[in-house]
């Protein structure tokens, strides 16, 4: 009896492992297929592979529209990352350290842009500027992206801020530091992992945004995702697969690199000051 039960448990565990493996394959198989196909020599965007070729990357580099869209997206994402991180840090500082009326309501409101479907946010902003008779501008698009990224940055920085004890800042203040320098010298350095993490996430959210950008972009402007979308209207081609691969390298490579740099930085620091950790 007992042996049979044990056997059952083992089978349940095997099933769990099997489904897990299937889910991981499910998540990465299409991406792998896209990367592989980008090196296909065939004229058509599909299997079978007829040979290895880099010609689609060459085509891509010569495609002025794609390059323009890439530059546009890069700029928007950089500005979004910088501004959102700054806003996110001061907001988390206020939400964690201070008590004020409406704090609870504000922390709920800050999360909302992540929960409201982008289509609704997209239409809403468009209706507003139509009502006040304003054109769609780049500034609008960037501010929209900042709105979409703010919830994530606030959540990340807030989680870290909670772990930084306020006595450190207060000690600096009591020793005569100004508010600003206590923030800059004490809080910010301890917050760095969350700042970097938040900035990277904001960058990818902006660089990747599709639905809302379709509504908000100024006439004639294409961002990288909207450019891909309009290229897909014709059909899938090896060039799109190559473009996808480049995008994957950028958006996966940057955070991974950032994470590695961060890890080696903290490791170096730990070696210097063994008891520096905040918690």
């Amino acid at each position, binding site marked *: 009896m007992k042996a049979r039960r044990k056997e059952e448990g083992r089978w349940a565990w095997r099933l769990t492992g099997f489904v897990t493996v299937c889910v991981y394959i499910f998540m990465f198989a299409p991406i792998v297929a896209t990367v592989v196909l980008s090196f296909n020599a065939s004229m058509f965007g599909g299997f079978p592979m007829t040979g290895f070729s880099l010609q689609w990357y060459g085509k891509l580099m010569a495609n002025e529209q794609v390059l323009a869209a890439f530059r546009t997206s890069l700029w928007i994402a950089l500005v979004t990352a910088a501004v959102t991180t700054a806003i996110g840090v001061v907001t988390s500082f206020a939400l964690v350290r*201070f008590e004020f009326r409406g704090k609870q309501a504000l922390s709920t409101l800050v999360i909302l842009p992540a929960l*409201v479907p982008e289509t609704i946010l997209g239409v809403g902003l468009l*209706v507003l500027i139509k009502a006040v008779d304003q054109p769609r501008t780049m500034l609008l698009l960037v501010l929209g992206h900042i709105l979409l990224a703010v919830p994530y940055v606030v959540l990340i920085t807030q989680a870290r801020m909670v772990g930084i004890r306020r006595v450190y800042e207060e000690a600096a203040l009591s020793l005569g530091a100004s508010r600003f320098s206590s923030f800059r010298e004490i809080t910010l350095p301890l917050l760095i992992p969350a700042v970097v993490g938040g900035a990277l996430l904001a960058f990818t959210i902006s660089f990747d945004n599709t639905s809302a950008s379709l509504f908000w972009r100024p006439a004639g402007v294409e961002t990288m995702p909207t450019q891909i979308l309009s290229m897909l209207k014709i059909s899938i081609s090896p060039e799109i697969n190559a473009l996808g691969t480049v995008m994957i390298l950028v958006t996966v490579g940057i955070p991974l690199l950032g994470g590695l740099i961060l890890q080696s930085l903290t490791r170096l620091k730990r070696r210097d000051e063994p008891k520096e950790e905040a918690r």
Partner: protein
Amino acid sequence: MKRRWTLYDPRLAWLLVAPVLLLLIFFLVLPIAVMAAYTFFTFVTAGVETSALTTANWHEFLTDSYYAGFLLKTLRVGAITALLCGVLGYFPAYFIWATTFKHKWVLLLLLIVPFWISFTIRTFSWINILGEQGVINVALLKMGIISEPLPMLYNEGAVILGMLHFLLPYMILNVYVSLEGIDRTLISAARSMGCTSAQAFREVTLPLSLPGLAAGLLLCFVLAAGSYVTPQLLGSGRDALFGNLIYDTIMGELNWPMGATLSIVLFLVLGSFAAIYTRFMGMSQIVKGLGG
């Protein structure tokens, strides 16, 4: 009269939150308010409307079964997607939590990586799997199992598959976070009292992970029902969802009052699901899930 600033002065707090507050007011609250007002505007012709108040848009929405059909289809697809996510997502979450594998951070990292890959790319990459020249069809043709490519793309199944693909990491992370919050001594206690591992799971682990599962279901449902790109890329015209209807009404027909009406409807419907959820579960679980 000037009051001295105290250490944690609420006025300073307001100064610090001013940027985010302005952003939220002008880009979230005001747009939705203006959009709500727009639902009562009169549509004249493409791109033109007057502020003469009318209930015509709401009347059209409520009486034309075309819109109700769209809404029901969207909710159905969203619900199917969320449930499939729940079933398929629980196993990996449980596995990552329970495994004694030394490098489980790799499994977690692999869950985060898809968030970094462009959603558009992840969606169109399914064409390389399901399309006429995709992996499956080419392999089956080569093996001689089929003589014609199977039409697997541009139907509702493909749309649900695509949404499953981008929503599964959300679900797995949500369940994982709530599993991580379980005090493991409770399970050892159940086992030492004579529970089998199945009983311990059913009586202790599963109930305690339900908040994460519920948060994941809500998130997946809302994101699926609000989606635009997936039906556009993987579905046919018949598989369009409410988000596509809104986009076409505004960007295609330029009927802004009706587009605003449809947006508000979607907002209210999805919002009420979220409200029911927070009524029972509170916001904290969603926040935990989003923060990864």
